[in-house]
């Protein structure tokens, strides 16, 4: 079940950063990839994130996300040329629809952007303990009850996956087939897994508030923390660097760099 906790123990540079510095990095990845819409620029951002993923030694834990990430990119590549019209360099005309080089480049840029954003989030989750992240979010001003909620979700994923697998087995044992039949019977059959999972989860976690309050939790009250975070000089330097780069990227965009279509994001 450990594979459902994303965190991978490690001693890489990114691992050793304070979670707040890592959050700054993720925010900056969002800024960098959003201000440009030229594939060369967003591609550079993606390359930087990928390099960080590889250097942190967490690539193997992200195996289960590859398919999703590739689908995300492919979807963007297919859809954007249809919707982002304009540009002069006509590449091809298909069934009366014109595809321009600009719209394809834009699609590529957005594909890189989306993948970079998701990947940076995953990088944060695979290199930080949830509890450290929770504390970091609190220290950054998020109300504790919200940060606690975030970490609780991660705690319950393994339990839910376990329930889901058992439900799947239980339903297969009584003849529910999830891969056979037409769309409607498949939908009906997937309800055989989703409904019990929902009900099991509801029943199970209906008592959760009782358990939490029994332990003295008061949503709005102050509390102390066993863990401690230290924002060291290195974290400060890293954060300053990425923030500077974010500002610089905005400056570049304002001066017309890194764009295929200047008037859209």
């Amino acid at each position, binding site marked *: *079940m450990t594979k459902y906790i994303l965190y991978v123990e490690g001693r890489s540079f990114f691992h050793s950063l304070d979670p707040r510095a890592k959050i700054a990095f993720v925010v900056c990845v969002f800024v960098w990839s959003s201000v440009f819409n030229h594939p060369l620029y967003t591609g550079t951002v993606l390359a930087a994130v990928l390099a960080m993923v590889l250097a942190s030694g967490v690539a193997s834990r992200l195996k289960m996300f590859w398919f999703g990430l590739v689908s995300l990119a492919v979807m963007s590549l297919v859809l954007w040329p249809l919707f982002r019209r304009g540009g002069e360099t006509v590449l091809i005309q298909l069934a009366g629809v014109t595809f321009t080089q600009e719209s394809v480049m834009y699609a590529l840029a957005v594909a890189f952007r989306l993948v970079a954003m998701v990947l940076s989030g995953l990088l944060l989750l695979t290199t930080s303990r949830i*509890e450290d992240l929770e504390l970091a979010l609190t220290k950054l001003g998020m109300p504790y009850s919200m940060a606690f909620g975030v970490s609780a979700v991660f705690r319950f994923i393994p339990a839910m996956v376990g329930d889901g697998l058992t*439900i799947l087995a*239980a339903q297969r044992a009584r003849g529910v087939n999830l891969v056979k039949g037409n769309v409607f019977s498949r939908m009906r059959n997937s*309800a055989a897994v989703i409904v019990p999972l929902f009900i099991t989860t509801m029943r199970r976690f209906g008592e959760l508030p*009782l358990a939490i309050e029994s332990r003295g939790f008061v949503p709005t009250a102050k509390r102390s923390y066993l863990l401690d975070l230290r924002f060291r000089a290195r974290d400060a330097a890293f954060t300053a660097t990425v923030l500077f780069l974010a500002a610089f990227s905005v400056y570049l965009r304002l001066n017309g760099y890194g764009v295929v279509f200047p008037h859209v994001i």
Partner: protein
Amino acid sequence: MVKAVEVRDVWVKYRGSNDYALKGVSAEVSEGEVVAIIGPTGAGKTTLCKVMAGLIPNMGVYDDFRGEARVYGEVTTSKRVGEISKSCAMVMQDYEVQLFRTTVELEVAFGPENLQLEREEIRRRVKWALDLVGLTGLEKRYSFALSGGQKQRLAIASLLSLQPSVLILDEATSDLDPRGKREVYDVMRRLLDEEVIKSLVLVDHRLEKVAEFADRVILLVDGKVAAEGDAKEVLGMVEELRSLGLKPPEVAEICWDMRVRSNSVPVLLDEALRVFPRVKRVRTPEERPAPGDGLAVELEDVWFAYDGQNWVLKGVDFRVHQGEMLALIGQNGSGKTTLAQVIMGILRPKRGRVRIFGRDATAEDVSERAKDVGYIFQNPDYQIFSQTVYEELAYGLRARGLSEAEVDRRVREVAEMMGITRLLNEDPFFLQKGERQRVAVASILALNPRVVILDEPTTGLSPGETRALMNTVLNLNRAGTTVITITHEMWVVAEYCTRTVMMADGRIVLDAPTRVAFSNAELLAQHDIFPPETCELSRRVAGVTLLTPREFLEHVEVG
């Protein structure tokens, strides 16, 4: 004596329910006392626990709450639950909901953190609490990766770190395997002996455990206190307990029926042994007729691993005859469920062969196997998804392509058999757990399987509900169905199963007729399995292993 908890004339009606869950209940827990609350399902045991811990009326919605509860003299109403748990804290049945942090250490630290204690003090309490429950050394582990028993002990530690004087255990061991149950009760013994806690309130269907721990017992029936008094006195009310579908301690049943008394009816084994009269005659118990020669299930050197390297089944050879009713026992993680799922075809063995009624089914798909084998899971909520009970029972039949007329006939037949005909138009979601369990069982039996696997079917059911379910299964078995029951309840094994197979670490370590298996107390104890007290009593006083109180009565004559 200092009163730790006092409940005065409490009435509770949950929002939207027809009747009161508690109807004028008064109860007390003094300092230094162990009090057990017993009663059938729906009697209000959990509600009373929640009133004591201040969860009611402070959390949740109620149509009516009257009366008052005091913890160390202070009225609980409109106090914060967390404030009350500093003196009186409640451990719930489902350990999963009580653990919501990621690691063991942070779980225990959560309470002290909320109390805004200094970091050093938090650390001290975490260390102290983990030591008390025997989890030292696991501080950095993820809590979800622990065993059930460890999880429940962690839940206890995380309440202990608030340093309560009263602990309430509401069926806290029901979901655990025998080892987990023993671990939790070992911890309770230690907490009481070392006076870490001053009082303990227990809810447990296993009245042997209650007899061992409790000073006083409160019997709840239909929201009212039906009896209250010295533990021996209440647990000795054999007839009353039986009529409520409870299971009195077995020695009490035997002593009651044979009119063996000391001052009162003995409820503990030691006590019974002291006063038991000389046995005049013992008749040898005859076994149920052996099943026929035909094999229903045959496993040959079966190996299985979920990840390809850690073997969960290590060369299992296993044969089940047609018409057998056998028990598969062993701790969680020993491979019982994996073995059952290999038989069902949900899992495919990595090595070895599976034969079902003689045909090689090793590579067969589960949907094919489902025609012969039915699998009933522990939690009915794992399979119920239809809007009416009728639809639920019809689902598997329709998936098999039967005609509507045939579907209707089978649904009504199985509903009749399981006693749920009146529920056919109900939404299963709103039924009680025992009823939902019957619906789940019926939906499998509707398919007419020749082999039925029950995977811990009685977890969370009262003894009365357990018997009702197992009697139905026994009737099926008498009609020729082969039954494999995975269970942690040894009295269920003793009463219903003629053969017992024990697994440990992916291997079968014992496979014998139940009487022979339960005679081997030493081997069972090595694996943390404890046969019913009747076995021990009969061995000591009559020199044979008898399995149930009834069997004892029928075969032992005293002078």
